[in-house]
């Protein structure tokens, strides 16, 4: 247990440093959200209508970008081999790393959402709806993305392949996240149903992700 706690602390500390993933992820989120009005046009009503989708797409792409770092840095300096050989089960170690990754890279996205919602002309209820769905959905993105990161860890330029592998698994999270946000903002469909499915997706990925990642790492590292 203490080993897992130490692993989480270590990962968060590394991620929060300048070269780590946390700040870069938020910056990329900001970039994507800022680019959208340039592409779509400055019509505020249209931006408010597209707001939840833009925020969700930005969060999805940002988490894809930072997923690369989940195992790559540890693989390069050899600590991944040490983690794999340690007494704590590799599944729990993967879950701990994913949790640390979410705390360091996913939470800042959610914290940045109200500010970016202002850029997109979203009012407070809309922004809080999007933030809540992001809170429920970004763990699913991180934990399913961990599977792709584990598969791609032994490839040298695995970044793009990682994105191709992870995207089909992230599409349901995106669909239900945006559906829940839209339902909360405009109605008439219920918010509860897509939100519950979003939570279910996160919970399932919390269980399946570490197992699949551990199997991939074990077979990829030998």
């Amino acid at each position, binding site marked *: 247990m203490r080993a897992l706690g130490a692993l989480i602390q270590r990962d968060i500390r590394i991620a929060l440093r300048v070269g780590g993933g946390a700040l870069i992820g938020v910056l990329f989120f900001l970039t994507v959200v800022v680019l959208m009005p340039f592409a779509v046009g400055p019509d505020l009503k249209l931006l408010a209508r597209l707001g939840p989708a833009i925020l969700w797409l930005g969060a999805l792409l940002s988490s894809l970008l930072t997923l690369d770092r989940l195992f790559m840095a540890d693989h390069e300096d050899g600590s991944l081999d040490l983690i794999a050989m340690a007494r704590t089960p590799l599944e729990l170690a993967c879950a701990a790393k994913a949790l640390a990754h979410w705390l360091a890279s996913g939470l800042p996205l959610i914290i940045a959402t109200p500010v970016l919602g202002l850029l997109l002309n979203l009012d407070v209820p809309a922004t809080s709806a999007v933030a809540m769905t992001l809170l429920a959905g970004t763990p699913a993105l991180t934990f399913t993305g961990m*599977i792709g990161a584990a598969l791609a860890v*032994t*490839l040298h330029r695995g970044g793009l392949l990682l994105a*191709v592998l992870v995207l089909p*698994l992230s599409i349901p999270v995106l669909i239900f996240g945006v559906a829940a946000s839209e339902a909360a903002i405009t109605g008439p469909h219920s918010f509860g149903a897509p939100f519950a499915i979003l939570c279910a997706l996160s919970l399932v990925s919390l269980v*399946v992700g570490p197992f*699949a990642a551990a*199997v991939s790492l074990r*077979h990829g590292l030998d």
Partner: protein
Amino acid sequence: MTLTDLANPTKFLALTARVLPWLVGATILLFLIGLYQSATAPDDYQQGATVKIMFIHVPNAWLSMLVWAVMSAAALGTLVWRHPLADVAAKAAAPIGAAFTFLALLTGSLWGRPMWGTYWEWDARLTSVLILFLMYLGLMALWRAVEDPSRAARAAAVLTLVGAINLPIIKFSVDWWNTLHQPASVFRMGGPTLDRAFLIPLLVMALAFTLLFVTLHLAAMRNEILRRRVRSLQMMQASQKAA
């Protein structure tokens, strides 16, 4: 001849060399019968002769899912039982499955234009089959990204099993979401609702396409085994030259 006997690549090559010509003949025969039955099937009262795209579209769609199921079984063979030819089977099946999925999407799109008025619609089944196609492509990319085939096999096996969750989603998508693509007419509780005049040609064509898959799959597995032998020989030759 049990599965463990077939684990020997040489025996597998010998067996498939004998069996493949018969399979090719059976496939051609079934296609001739199926195409004749499809051509002579009656016109639909609503869709006219366009309904005959169904005899190509539906078997391709069924096979796109069957191939992923076969690959999942092969993935289990790789990860759990370490069957030597399981990863050969998985690698050989991926491009064939991708082709079937693409054909299902293409024929469905051509059928949708006269029937629904649009080539594409983001409804539940079309979207989930498109995701299946993307997963096939990702899987093929993963196979070719790792140099050593047996290491690539294990990574691909994990991805195949994780992606297998898409199969029940595709199957039940027309029940869960009431959108454009029509609900299940054949594989449903209470039996098929399709009239016999259409059901028989459909099943014959499905059988023909399945035999086509088996033939292509076995041929592709033979090629993959030979490809690996060439690779081993090249590596032996390179190490001998170095020594």
